[in-house]
């Protein structure tokens, strides 16, 4: 029997380490040295963290929402007595459970080892095929490797969706003494964690992709540019690189092929714009991370003015599979235009949030309803935001759109890097647009005027609309500005910044109009446009609201109806949250 605890960032944040320690001491106390205790990366079911998997003769049983106390039940019942503890079961090969749907529509290519191996043991990864793609690649010529990747149809997963094989071909064709293979692990979309989970759960998949890429384009130096806010990912990556070196996958004369490849990590320093490839290269060179005009493209003139190739973490994690199983096998997944799978970080008002991987062509609805289980609040879902600050909102009416670069772009959103945030009726779409603009405006590097000033003006208009100070003509002004910023910004940060505004204007224009013309927020979220009152019929005079009001604006004797003074009320919503009788009403 083997017990495995999920110790990705999400698992640790939810208390996975405490559960691990508890099991460790229980095994000690009961003298059960026959049982192995291990850890793994993200199993995908972040909604049920901390997770513990028990492997016995009958297969795998995953328990969820554990803590130091209830893990004792699982331990006694399953580990000691061999009885499955149904009450805490979230996934099992033997019993049907309610979360089975979470997995049924997923296909795991990129995440095949994530959550299945101990990311700190290279042998674990190799048993499940890691570095087999590298072995095959080294038996081919670089051009043959490039052709295989081209044939797979793989397109970049970092946002822009450029065909990976083609990009490699350009870099291979460039002549220089030194070329660079770069990995973009700067995952900056605030609400996305695909790349982090891959790095934490299966760092070898990315390392393998980097070595194959280096071999294909003729680069002997590889650099992974990682977000410094991801300490665990960096730690595991470093360890994995060390182990790969010991096995002869990195360093001089790799596996006797004559190919040398050195890999190192550079940590970012907290700037979203450094995810843009030219800004990233400036940052690696030690400068302020500001983008420059392309062309020249990195394949021609990149890091230190040498030909360079940049790929996203998830893109690279596909490479080992493609080389190992061949382009034809890979092409079985997906649509005409989009081959393979896509990993999404499913979050927001969703019941089963987590890390999911689906074949392209599945519809947005299947991801949200079948896999994600629908809304977490019980209220109807209104929209989903795809692609973060560069992306857009897709309204529920368009949920039958298949996941595919082309069809998603038609809606005004983008495939993006994979952040997928679900919103329900309580979320104001003007506020969401303001939220993203606030983000891009702060992260604008300031180099070009349209991005620096344009986003600021747009943010000002959005802010005044949410504050109830919008005036007729604001919507048109926003649209004009949006198109100017889109057209004239230097890099994709500015060029895509208006997307959240334009898509919400396209699908939720009535919400903007309600804010401006009727001074109402239909989602009852914008504080300047709502008011709180207490229903005299439902109020029991329990005094709880009055005691919890931070500004003391609620008055009333015990057991008598309470009253809110709207002139003092800050509409923080605390009274509504604490009232047990539903007597606080928002209008």
């Amino acid at each position, binding site marked *: 029997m083997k017990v495995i605890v999920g110790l990705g960032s999400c698992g640790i*944040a939810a208390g996975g380490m405490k559960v691990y320690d508890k099991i460790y001491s229980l095994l000690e106390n009961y003298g059960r040295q026959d049982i192995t205790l291990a850890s793994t990366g993200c199993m995908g079911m972040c909604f049920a963290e901390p997770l513990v998997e028990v492997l016995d003769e009958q297969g795998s049983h995953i328990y969820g929402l554990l803590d130091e106390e209830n893990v004792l039940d699982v331990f006694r019942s399953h580990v000691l007595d061999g009885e499955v503890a149904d009450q805490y079961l979230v996934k099992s090969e033997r019993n049907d459970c309610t979360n089975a749907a979470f997995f049924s529509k997923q296909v795991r290519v990129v995440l095949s080892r994530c959550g299945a191996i101990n990311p700190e043991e290279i042998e674990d990864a190799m048993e499940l095929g890691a570095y087999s793609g590298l072995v095959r690649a080294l038996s081919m010529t670089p051009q043959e490797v490039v052709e295989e990747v081209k044939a797979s149809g793989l397109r970049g997963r970092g946002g822009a969706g450029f065909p990976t094989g083609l990009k490699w071909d350009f870099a291979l064709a460039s002549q220089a003494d030194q070329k660079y293979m770069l990995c973009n692990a700067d995952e900056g979309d605030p609400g996305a964690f695909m790349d982090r989970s891959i790095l934490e759960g299966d760092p070898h998949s990315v390392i393998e992709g980097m070595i194959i890429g280096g071999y294909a384009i003729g680069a002997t130096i590889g650099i992974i540019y990682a977000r410094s806010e991801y300490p665990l990912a960096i730690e595991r990556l470093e360890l994995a690189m060390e182990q790969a070196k010991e096995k002869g996958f990195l360093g001089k004369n790799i596996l006797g092929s004559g190919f040398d490849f050195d890999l190192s990590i550079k940590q970012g320093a907290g700037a979203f714009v450094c995810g843009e490839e030219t800004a990233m290269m400036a940052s690696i060179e*030690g400068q302020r991370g500001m983008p420059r005009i392309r062309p020249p493209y990195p394949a021609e003139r990149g890091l230190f003015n040498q030909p360079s190739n940049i790929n996203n973490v998830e893109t690279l994690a596909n490479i080992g599979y493609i080389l190992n199983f061949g382009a034809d096998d890979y092409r079985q997944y997906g649509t005409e235009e989009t081959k393979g799978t896509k990993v999404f970080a499913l979050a927001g008002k969703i019941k089963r949030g987590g890390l999911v991987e689906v074949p392209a062509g599945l519809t947005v609805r299947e991801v949200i309803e079948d896999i994600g289980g629908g809304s977490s609040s019980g209220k109807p879902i209104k929209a989903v935001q795809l692609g973060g600050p560069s992306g857009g909102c897709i309204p529920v009416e368009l949920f039958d759109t298949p996941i595919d670069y082309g069809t998603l772009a038609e809606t005004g959103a983008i495939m993006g890097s994979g952040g997928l945030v679900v919103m329900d009726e309580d979320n104001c779409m003007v506020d969401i647009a303001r939220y993203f603009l606030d983000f891009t405006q702060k992260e604008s*590097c300031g180099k070009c005027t349209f991005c620096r000033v344009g986003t600021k003006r747009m943010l000002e208009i959005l802010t005044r609309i949410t504050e109830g100070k919008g005036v007729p003509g604001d919507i048109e002004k926003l649209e004009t500005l949006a198109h100017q910023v889109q057209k004239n910004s230097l890099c994709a940060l500015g060029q895509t910044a208006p997307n959240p505004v334009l898509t919400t204007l396209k699908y939720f224009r009535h919400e903007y109009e309600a804010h401006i013309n009727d001074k109402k927020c239909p989602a009852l979220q914008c504080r300047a446009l709502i008011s709180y009152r207490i229903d005299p019929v439902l109020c029991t005079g329990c005094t709880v609201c009055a005691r919890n009001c931070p500004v003391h604006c609620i008055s009333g004797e015990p057991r008598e109806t309470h009253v809110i003074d709207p002139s003092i009320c800050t509409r923080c919503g605390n009274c509504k949250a604490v009232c047990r009788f539903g007597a606080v009403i928002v209008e």
Partner: protein
Amino acid sequence: MSKQIDYFKPLDEIIGDNKGDASQLIPMLQKIQESYGYLPMDVIVEMSERTGIKVTDIMGVASFYAGFRLTPLGKYVVKICAGTACHVNGAETIAETICEELNVNLDETTEDGLFTVETVACLGCCSLAPVMMINGEVYGRLTRDKTKKILREYKELEGA
């Protein structure tokens, strides 16, 4: 004088024999911040003298990246997640509660030097939204009450 030598001691190893290799600037600043807690001005000047990299260039880089700080931090750093998932799950109310409870504004440190409050983009545990992190410890599924309780525990620990 001897205090000065001790004060700049960490630079010996961090800078080593780097003479103006600007591509190492960011890693060097990261290490300085690690050992001093922030980037003190006198250390930047000393670094400039030793490496030959101009103070203006160092400051240009240090002020560009959000990861570098030019003022000292409180004993506890409260990072409020302002990522999308946390935002749609009411992170703003949590931020408000924290500022109220500690009596500070965002990006400021309390007068007693105990708490620095700041916002960060996605802490990577969106399923636990809304989330905050205090000195590396993550607290998820926050409500107003839960947030206050956690902060009060820290305050009690410090007898404040």
